[in-house]
C-alpha cells in the first residue's frame, strides 16, 4: 500500500480546495454544493452497502430527518448552526441505530422493501404534520450556517463548508475502517455466517453500520437545510434514495474514492447531456446500463486498472 502512487490523490485534494474559486458561474457553484452534499450521503451509504454489504433504499428519509430536525432546532430553540448540526446528526444516527436494530434481521428483497417502506412512512409523516414541519409547503427561513462569528453568506464560502464536512467524513470513515469495527464490517460483507462463526456479533455490527451511515446522512441533511435555507418534503422521495444507491454502485462499492467519483459523475452527467434536450434522460439511462454491464464494479475499478497500467509502463 505504501508504494502506491500518491500523486493523483494529492492533485485531487488540491483540486477540491481551488475548485470553488475556479468555477466562475454562480449556477455551477450551486451544482458543486449539491454535488458535495450527495458525496457526503454516498460516503455514508457506502459504509453500509459497500463495506458491510447491507442494502438501504431509504436513506433520503434519514437526510430529511437530519435536515428537518436541524432546521427546527435553530428556528424554534435558536440553537447556533454548529450545535444544531451536531445534535441533529447524532439524533438521526441514534434513530437509525434503533431502526437498524429491528430491521436488520431481514435480508435481500425483504430488507429492500422495509427500507423503502420506512422511507415512505417518514416522508408521509413529514407531509402530514404541518405544525412542526410546515407540511407540503415545506420549512422556510432556516438560518444560514455560521461558526461562532463567521457567517457563511456567499455561495463560495458555503461550498468550502461542504468540502470541510466531506473531509471530516472521509477522516471518520478511514478511522472506522482501520479499526476492529471496520474489519468486522468487511467480514460480514464477505460471509456473514463465517463471520458469526468467528465470534463476531453480526447483528450488532450491522446495526452499528446502519447507525453510522444514517448519522452521516443526517449530517448531509442538516447541511442541506442550512445551506439552502428551505426544505420541501417532496425532494426526499424514493427516487432520491435510489439515486444515492446508484452513486455508490456506479462509483465503486467498498472504496472511499468510489462513491465520490460516482456522485461527481451522476451530478455532472445530466448537466453535460442538457444540450441533448429531450434525449437527455434517455441517454442517461442508456449510460447507466452500459456502466453496469461493462464496468459492474464501478468507475473506480476502471480508473484503478488504467492507473496500474500507467505505472507498469513506467
Amino acid at each position, binding site marked *: 500500500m505504501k508504494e502506491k502512487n500518491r500523486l493523483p490523490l494529492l492533485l485531487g485534494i488540491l483540486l477540491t480546495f481551488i475548485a470553488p474559486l475556479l468555477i466562475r458561474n454562480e449556477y455551477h457553484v450551486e451544482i458543486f454544493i449539491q454535488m458535495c452534499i450527495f458525496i457526503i450521503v454516498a460516503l455514508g451509504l457506502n459504509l453500509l*452497502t459497500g463495506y458491510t454489504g447491507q*442494502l438501504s433504499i431509504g436513506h433520503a428519509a434519514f437526510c430529511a430527518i437530519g435536515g428537518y430536525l436541524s432546521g427546527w432546532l435553530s428556528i424554534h430553540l435558536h440553537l447556533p448552526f454548529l450545535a444544531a448540526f451536531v445534535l441533529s446528526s447524532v439524533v438521526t444516527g441514534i434513530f437509525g441505530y434503533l431502526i437498524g436494530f*429491528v*430491521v436488520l*434481521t*431481514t*435480508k*435481500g*428483497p*425483504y430488507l*429492500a*422493501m*422495509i427500507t*423503502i*417502506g*420506512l422511507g*415512505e*412512512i417518514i416522508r*408521509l*409523516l413529514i*407531509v*402530514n404534520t404541518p405544525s412542526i414541519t410546515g407540511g407540503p409547503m415545506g420549512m422556510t427561513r432556516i438560518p444560514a450556517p455560521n461558526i461562532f462569528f463567521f457567517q457563511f453568506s456567499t455561495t463560495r464560502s458555503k461550498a468550502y463548508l461542504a468540502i470541510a464536512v466531506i473531509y471530516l467524513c472521509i477522516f471518520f470513515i478511514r478511522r472506522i475502517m482501520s479499526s476492529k469495527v471496520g474489519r468486522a464490517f468487511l467480514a460480514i460483507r464477505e460471509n456473514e455466517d463465517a463471520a458469526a462463526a468467528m465470534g463476531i456479533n453480526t447483528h450488532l455490527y450491522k446495526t452499528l453500520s446502519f447507525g453510522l451511515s444514517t448519522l452521516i446522512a443526517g449530517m448531509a441533511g442538516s447541511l442541506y437545510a442550512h445551506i439552502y435555507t428551505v426544505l420541501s418534503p417532496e425532494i426526499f422521495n*424514493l427516487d432520491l434514495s*435510489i439515486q444515492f*444507491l*446508484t452513486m455508490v*454502485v*456506479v462509483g465503486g*462499492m467498498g472504496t472511499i474514492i468510489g462513491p465520490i467519483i460516482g456522485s461527481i459523475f451522476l451530478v455532472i452527467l445530466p448537466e453535460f447531456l442538457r444540450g441533448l434536450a*429531450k*434525449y437527455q*434522460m*434517455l441517454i*442517461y*439511462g*442508456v*449510460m*447507466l*446500463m452500459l*456502466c*453496469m*454491464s461493462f464496468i*459492474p464494479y464501478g468507475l473506480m475499478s476502471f480508473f484503478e486498472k488504467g492507473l496500474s497500467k500507467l505505472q507498469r509502463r513506467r
Partner: protein
Amino acid sequence: MIETIIQQIINGLAVGSIYALIAIAWSMIFSGLDLFNFALSEYLMIGAFVGITLLNLHLPFPIAFLLTIVAIAIMAYLIDLSFLRRLRHAPHVITMIATVGLGVAIKNAAILIWGTEGAHFPSFFGEKGIPFHGVYIVPQNIWIFGIALVYMVFLYLFLYKSGLGTRVRAAAQLRVTAGLMGINVKTTDAVITMIGGMSMVIGGILVAPIYYTEANMGNVVALKGFAAAVLGGFGNLFGAMIGGLLLGLIENLAVSYISSQYLNIIAYLVIIVVLLLKPSGLLGKMKR
C-alpha cells in the same frame, strides 16, 4: 355499516387482484432469475400505451388485449436476451442499478414515442355502479377480478401440471442442479421472463382505465406489487396472490376508517410488521 364493509371488500378484491398480478411478475423474476428488475414498472406502462395504440386502430378489445400481451412478452424476452443476460451472476445491488437505468431509458423512450401528456384508456366494462342489495357493484371491478383469476388459474395449471412448467419450477429452485439434470435453463429463463412480462402487462391493461395512462403510471402500482410480493413471500405463486389480495383489502378497508393521507402509512406499516414477525413473508421460505 355492513354494506360499506362489503362494498370495500369488493373494491379491495379488484385492486388486490391487480396487485397480485404484479406481485407474480416480481416473484417469478426474483426467484426464477435471482434478479431485482426495477424496470418492470415500465413494462406495465408500455403495455398500457401499446394497448391504447392498438385500440386506436379500431381493433376489437379482446384482439388488442392478446396482441399487447404477446408484444410485451416478446419485448421482455428481447431485453433479457440483449441486456439482462449479461448480469445473470452479478450481485443484487448491481443488477438493481442496471435495471434502474433500463427503466429510465424505457420511460424516456416512451415519452419520445407517445409524448408527455398521456392518454385516457377507454373503459370497456362500464364504470357505473349497479345497485345490488344496497351495494354498488361496478362491472369493471368484476371483470378485473375475473380476468386476473382466469389468468392465475391458467398460470397455476401451467406451472404445476405441465411438463415445461415443472421444469421451470425446478430451474427456479436450483438452477445448476436443474441444468445438470438435462433441463435447458435458457428455455426456462425465457419462459420466466415472458411470464413476468405477461403478468405485468395484464396488470397494466386492467389498471389503465382506473389510472390515467402516462409515462409515470407504472411507479406507484409496481411498488405496491413489489410490496405485495414481499408480503406474501417470494418463490411462491400463492404467496404473491395472497399478498396482493391482502394488500388491496387492507387499503380499501382502512380507507373507510382513517383519512386517505395515512392510507399508505398503514399499508407500509402492516408490511413492515409482518416482515419483522416473519422475515421471509407470509408464505415464503428462508433461502440460505
